[in-house]
């Protein structure tokens, strides 16, 4: 599932994403419009304001809104609307000044500290800590005493103090990008530091910086308003929102309306800045992803009567399974059965649907993927479309799942022994029985020193031991069926061999079965009794492993085997041209036809059914020319 081909021909850089998010959210567009309005009215206040903000009219004191005074008048008869228009000026300029200084200092300092590390990082980080230690508001109040009514100086200092946060943000973003391989590739290309920083690092820190700037604007507007509320801001004559609020608060018992216009404008402006900051943040990597709608499970499970009478030895029967993503089907009519004591291999390349099939069996599909047709019968019980409650009873006790990344299956906070005991207790063991069983389980999965491993936390053990522990964890509920998705792909080849031996032992009792999902045909050849080869959402060939691999009856299987490099030969490999078609490009006929050397017109006419192949053991192929492959022995 790793190869997801996006057809969108657009950049996916964080800055581009943030830009798109800003332009598409109506709420954010409203916020931007509001800020534009505030800025324009502040800049053109002289022309736009209906009255002079300072002219007092003692005959019109504390008037409510009227046709002449849209927002009424204050205690000195001055027009509130005009004062509001003039009052944003100092505030916005001051906030912009502080923000610009914070970014101008923080951006280069953060880039240097993040990219270079070492001493530069240590010194800069120390300075950053210093800015965090300084109580900004106290400094501002002190400054207001030394430089009375000098907003420019106060905001410059606020900007310098704010540069600490900007530096830290840029540093952290830079450090993440610095370790990307494309930066290494650029370094190997011999690009100068300047180019690497500007072309490759800067674009990824732009969006967080925009977010920070918007937040900083909001904070500065509040700080400045608070200062003028305290009478420490700009000139007491010049109107400002904070001062208007102060004056309104003096008259709150006489006329509470006065508080509304400056309060509303201040709050709306701060909200607008914060909205923009949030939108940019959400567009950054790690932001919340849109929550998909939970579909109702509509399942067309066939009744047992419709299906051929099941063999009592059959543990799992998957029939006509269809799994759909919101974009369409990705698993298209998969049918297979697993008997007790058997290991079935599901083999295929990325996009073949093998992992989705494996996840669908115990109902572990992600929230926006669902089974839309077919049946999954496990030990006589239908799992497709059943309730989450019944599924959770089956999971662990009936069906257990082993993931590719063993470390992901283990909780880093608890010791191995703790996790195993907790799982055993969950399945009903007493405290004493769980403690005793833990050691046995670890020995069963081939750990020679269980007491020691039990005391380890996941990071203290190697990948091979971790996968053994993950298998032990899967065995705690004594499940009848194990599903292992690429369980050895992340492991070294010598460790892989030992884990495959372990799987063989786990199934050897004859009561368990294993479905092993793998892209590695060698692994399948080593451990699987039967194999189902998947291509583009379908099983294209199924049968006993030695006959399928020894004499493939589907051209895809044959081509895949031939394209494997071997230990005995060198030189050019016979390749399959082209690539696996994406689900939305699946043809109506044979899905492999476009890449197949044997394809004829008949292959493209319509869906190809699975056809039986005569032979000593049951065997099927989805190829109209399957018989043509018969005389030719496989490799």
């Amino acid at each position, binding site marked *: 599932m790793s190869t997801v081909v*996006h057809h969108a021909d657009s950049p996916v850089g964080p800055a581009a994403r943030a830009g798109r998010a800003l332009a598409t959210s109506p709420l954010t567009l409203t916020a931007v419009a509001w800020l534009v309005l505030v800025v324009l009215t502040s800049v053109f206040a002289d022309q736009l304001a209906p009255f002079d903000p300072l002219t007092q009219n003692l005959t019109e004191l504390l008037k409510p809104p009227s046709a002449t005074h849209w927002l009424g008048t204050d205690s000195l008869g001055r027009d509130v609307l005009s004062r509001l228009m003039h009052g944003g000026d100092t505030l916005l300029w001051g906030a912009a000044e502080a923000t610009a200084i914070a970014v101008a200092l923080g951006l280069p300092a953060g880039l240097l500290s993040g990219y270079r590390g070492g001493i530069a990082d240590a010194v800069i980080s120390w300075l950053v800590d210093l800015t965090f230690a300084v109580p900004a508001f106290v400094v501002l109040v002190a400054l207001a005493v030394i430089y009375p009514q000098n907003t420019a100086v106060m905001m410059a200092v606020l900007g310098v103090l704010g540069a600490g946060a900007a530096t830290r943000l840029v540093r952290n973003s830079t450090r993440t990008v610095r370790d990307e391989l494309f930066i290494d590739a650029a370094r190997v290309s011999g690009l100068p530091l300047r180019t690497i920083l500007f072309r490759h690092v800067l674009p990824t820190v732009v969006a967080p910086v925009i977010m920070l700037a918007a937040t900083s604007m909001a904070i500065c507007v509040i700080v400045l308003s608070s200062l003028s509320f305290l009478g420490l801001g700009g000139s007491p004559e010049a109107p400002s929102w904070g001062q208007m609020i102060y004056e309104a608060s003096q008259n709150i018992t006489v006329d509470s309306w006065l508080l509304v216009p400056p309060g509303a404008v201040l709050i709306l402006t701060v909200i607008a800045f914060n909205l923009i900051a949030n939108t940019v943040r959400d567009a950054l990597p790690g932001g919340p992803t849109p929550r998909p709608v939970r579909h109702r499970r509509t399942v067309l499970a066939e009744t047992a009567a419709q299906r051929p009478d099941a063999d009592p030895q059959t543990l799992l029967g998957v029939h006509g399974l269809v799994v759909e993503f919101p974009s369409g089907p990705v698993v298209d009519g998969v049918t297979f059965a697993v008997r007790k004591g058997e290991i079935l291999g599901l083999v295929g390349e990325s996009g073949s649907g093998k992992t989705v099939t494996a996840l669908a069996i115990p109902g572990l599909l992600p929230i926006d993927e669902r089974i839309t047709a077919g049946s999954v019968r496990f030990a006589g019980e239908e799992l497709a479309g059943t309730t989450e409650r019944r599924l959770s009873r089956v999971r662990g006790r009936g069906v257990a799942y082993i993931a590719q990344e063993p470390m992901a299956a283990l909780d880093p906070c608890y010791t191995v022994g703790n996790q195993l005991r907790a799982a055993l207790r969950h399945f009903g063991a007493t405290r004493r029985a769980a403690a005793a069983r833990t050691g046995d389980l670890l020995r069963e999965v081939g750990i*020679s020193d269980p007491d020691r491993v039990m005391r380890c936390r996941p990071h203290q053990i190697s990948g091979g031991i971790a996968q053994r522990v993950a298998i032990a964890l899967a065995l705690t509920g004594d499940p009848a069926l194990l599903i292992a998705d690429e369980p050895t792909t992340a492991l070294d080849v010598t460790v892989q061999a030992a884990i495959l031996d372990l799987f063989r032992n786990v199934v050897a009792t004859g009561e368990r079965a294993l479905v092993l999902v793998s892209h590695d045909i060698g692994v399948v050849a080593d451990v699987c009794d039967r194999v189902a080869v998947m291509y583009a959402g379908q099983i294209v060939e199924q049968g006993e492993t030695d006959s399928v691999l020894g004499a493939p009856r589907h051209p895809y299987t044959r081509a895949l*085997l031939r394209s494997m490099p071997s230990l005995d030969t060198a030189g050019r490999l016979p390749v399959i041209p082209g690539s696996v078609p994406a689900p939305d490009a699946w043809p109506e006929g044979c899905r492999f036809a476009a890449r197949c050397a044997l394809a004829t017109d008949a292959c493209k006419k319509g869906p190809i059914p699975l056809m039986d192949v005569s032979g000593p053991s049951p065997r099927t192929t989805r190829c109209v020319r399957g018989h043509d492959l018969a005389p030719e022995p496989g490799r």
Partner: protein
Amino acid sequence: MTPTPEEVQPRTDAWLLEIDHLRVSYGRRRRTHTAVDDVTLNVGAGEAVGLVGESGSGKSTIGRAVLGLTASSSGRIRFEDTDITSVPAERRGALTADLQVVFQDPYGSLNPARTISQTLTEPLLTHRAMTAEQARARVQGLLDQVGLPADAANRYPAAFSGGQRQRIAIARALASNPKLVICDEPVSALDLSTQAQILNLLADLRADLGLAYLFIGHNLAVVRNLCDRVVVLYRGQVMETGPAAQVTGHPLHPYTAALVAAAPVADVAAQRERRLARVTVTEPLTVAHSGCPFAGRCPHVEDICRQQRPARVKVGESVVACHLFPSGKGDSHTSGSVDEKV
């Protein structure tokens, strides 16, 4: 002294890359971890040398040290007789054109916010006095060379599959006409059918352009397919070096033999034989710090293996570091004969 490669390997002046007693350590004082421990290997002009090992063997670290992305602790790296041991990538100037890389992860190695054309022209416009027009023509030539359509140039990496991205990464490496390309697991993240396409492309490019490869991988069959010589690493040390067919066909070192035996083949009957024949070696919880690094897992281990680091001994066309192949009776310091066959 242990025999140096000059004594062991036929000394020619054609070495493109010479790595001499390289050591790379991380951390400080007592918490030091030595990722690469006294590694000596050479790559000739036009030669493909495979560097095989499991995770933690230090194979990628060697590649990064050669590229100037990781600092070496001691030893020497020379490229065409220029000492590049302590020259980071940014300060290599014109040399970067000769020494290029293809990384494993085709998703992380391309900047998602830059078009393919921007990625490919970047090194062209930086180093070579190329006009934008010339660079555009060169990009078209490169895309054609790696089998991508011409209209790929104006797209972003997100529009391509893993195999196609790896072709783009190869095109970027080729842009400056390099002499040596470090291939750091270039096919490990790819599907089987895509892997074969990329391996063939690498083989063709080598034949057409006379490239040399230092091919880092964990899959012996892949390395055998592409490389002339193979160097087998374990925990930062070279266990065995020799012609690819020799190392995979007749491994000398017990570790190489374990690697070969563990690599599964797609033939059920053959795989059954291999499985029955192989000696399972479990991974130990702790690692000894003296003697042979493989001693804890080796089926042929003897007392000397835990005490003394084995000398490099020439056996046939291979060089092996194992006490099973003594260069003199037990004492490698006085041993002179490196040609002794065992």
